[in-house]
């Protein structure tokens, strides 16, 4: 079983993960998620969807009611593999009596990082995260943003292959958020697998290769961003003039008219040209033709709106 799972190319291969808390509260109802090696994967969903529970199960903080699959080739909960995993929990709390350097050394020692590596890695990471001047300062003097950067530094102290970041940009200003995005891209270039849980969909859109949308404890959508948005692309044509005489012809082309805006669902160039011909034939002035792709937010809202939760049937292969 182990030998087989180690052969898989997935960094994370979660199969039928379930968690029922006391009083029969079902947080996860059979989650299946695959994360490819070396990709940045985003997990999103509304509050109470089970995202944090899923992350905590992956990090052995919460015990699943049922779970199959592997993380970095080992069964979920395998303690040895945690040495190669970095984790930043949401709303983390670090002991205020430690300095930044002491904290990194402490957590890295727990992650079995040799002392020599710790003393080299800690100043480097503090420098990379803009905290080089603060290494000797007690953590209770840190701002929220500094604490967040320190949290990311501790997650990277053991040079992990797999990094789980829960709301990594929480409390950071726009410059800080950009820094973290750049860091994530650097990690991907270095071949690391990053699992992101964030409410900031625009952030996920910018860095993620693939995403999964969790709704009510089940995966509602999963795939690459282009896969997820492909069926939601539309063409928006604005014009001036009276389109009333050609309304029925536009309807025949499945174009919806709203004042001076025509929306064509899908990405069909022939259909778009047909609508343009129709408008010009009527002597109307075309002001703009814009293809429009739905945002992650649109997809999330759509998934929440009631599409029965399912895997969307799109590519589940890791991004190249």
């Amino acid at each position, binding site marked *: 079983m182990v030998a087989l799972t180690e052969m898989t190319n997935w960094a994370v291969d979660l199969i039928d993960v379930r968690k029922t808390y006391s009083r029969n509260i079902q947080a996860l109802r059979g989650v299946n998620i695959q994360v490819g090696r070396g990709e940045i994967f985003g997990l999103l969903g509304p509050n109470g969807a089970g995202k944090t529970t899923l992350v*905590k199960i992956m990090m052995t903080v919460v015990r699943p009611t049922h779970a199959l699959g592997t993380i970095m080739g080992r069964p979920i909960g395998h*303690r040895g593999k945690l040495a190669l995993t970095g984790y930043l929990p949401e709303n983390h709390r*670090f002991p205020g009596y430690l300095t930044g350097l002491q904290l990194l050394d402490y957590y890295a020692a727990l992650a079995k990082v040799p002392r020599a590596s710790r003393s080299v890695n800690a100043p480097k990471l503090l420098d990379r995260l803009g905290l080089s001047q603060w290494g000797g300062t007690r953590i209770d003097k840190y701002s929220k943003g500094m604490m967040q950067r320190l949290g990311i530094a501790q997650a990277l102290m053991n040079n992990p292959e797999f990094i789980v970041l829960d709301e990594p940009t929480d409390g950071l200003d726009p410059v800080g958020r950009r820094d973290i995005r750049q860091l994530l891209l650097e990690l991907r270039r270095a071949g690391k697998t990053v699992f992101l849980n964030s409410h900031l969909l625009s952030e996920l859109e910018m860095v993620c290769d693939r995403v999964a949308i969790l709704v009510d404890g089940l995966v509602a959508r999963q795939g690459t961003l282009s896969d997820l948005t492909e069926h939601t692309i539309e063409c928006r044509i604005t014009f001036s003039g009276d389109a009333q005489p050609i309304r029925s012809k536009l309807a025949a082309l499945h174009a919806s008219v709203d004042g001076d805006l025509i929306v064509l669902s899908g990405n069909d160039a022939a259909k778009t040209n047909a609508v343009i011909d129709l408008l010009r034939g009527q002597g109307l002035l075309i002001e703009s033709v814009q293809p429009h792709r739905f945002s992650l937010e649109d997809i999330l809202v759509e998934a929440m709106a009631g599409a029965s939760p399912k895997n969307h049937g799109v590519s589940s292969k890791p991004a190249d």
Partner: protein
Amino acid sequence: MQFWALIVDSFRESRDRKIFWVMLIIEIIIAAAMFCIGFQPGRIHILFGLWSAETDYFTGMSGLRHDKIAAVAVSGVMDVILGWIGVSLAIVATSGFFPSLLERGTVDVLLSKPISRSRLFLGKYVGSMVFVLFHATFFIGLTFLIIGIRWGSWLPGYLLSIPLLVILFSYVYCISAWAGVRFRSATVAIYLSLGAWVIFAGIQGIGDLFDTFPEWKKNRLAYEASVVARWVVPKTHDITYLAGKWSGAALSTELIPKIEEEDRSAVERAGQAELERMNLSPLYTIGSSLLFEAVIIGLAIWRFARKDF
């Protein structure tokens, strides 16, 4: 490496508590006061001769009564100052260690490390002992030197009070650790552990009374219950007896300056009972207590290992 990191972290956490420094200041003041006291045959000097009085209590006629000085050191320093007061303060200082460890956001990071929950618990548990180990080493070491240099009585056995104090603390702290895991509240942990300590002391006190007044043993049921209860609970009293024995201390009854004739037989019986407790095997005294502690720690680990955070 992991265990050591937890111990170092616990010591840093201890140092961060105000009680740690308050205890240190109290210890220095008491040690300084002891340093101001000196003995000569038949006399005691306070403040380097500023005030002195005639007494043969500590010196006898032929020189220092080392056994009495040892008894005072053990009952004063080890039993009262570090035992009751020090251990109580240490319980108050360390009772928050487990509740703070289990706070959301803290425990998540720790559990994501490649360390088992039982090892994590034990590392923190042993680390909490460092608080008492530090103070016991500092104060007993300091008073050992003062008793030797200023009073002329070198008591190497007295140094064994250091590990005995740590063991005494562990008897009470196991309750605090279990309560910390179970209720995640430092206040509850303090009340339960100190309450348990009073119960342990009460059970042993009742046992001592049965030994002092053998006629009470006629009530077989009460006596047998007392014997069983005494066997089960940690023997916090016996730790002091053991420290006294290893320090070569006189019996506490010998410290009473004047005994009225009508009290003499009761005092002698109490002395005999104390001697019997002193001569109990350390394997029984400490071993059976550690068994109790192991059960409580086992319960705490079981709870910690099963819990979702």
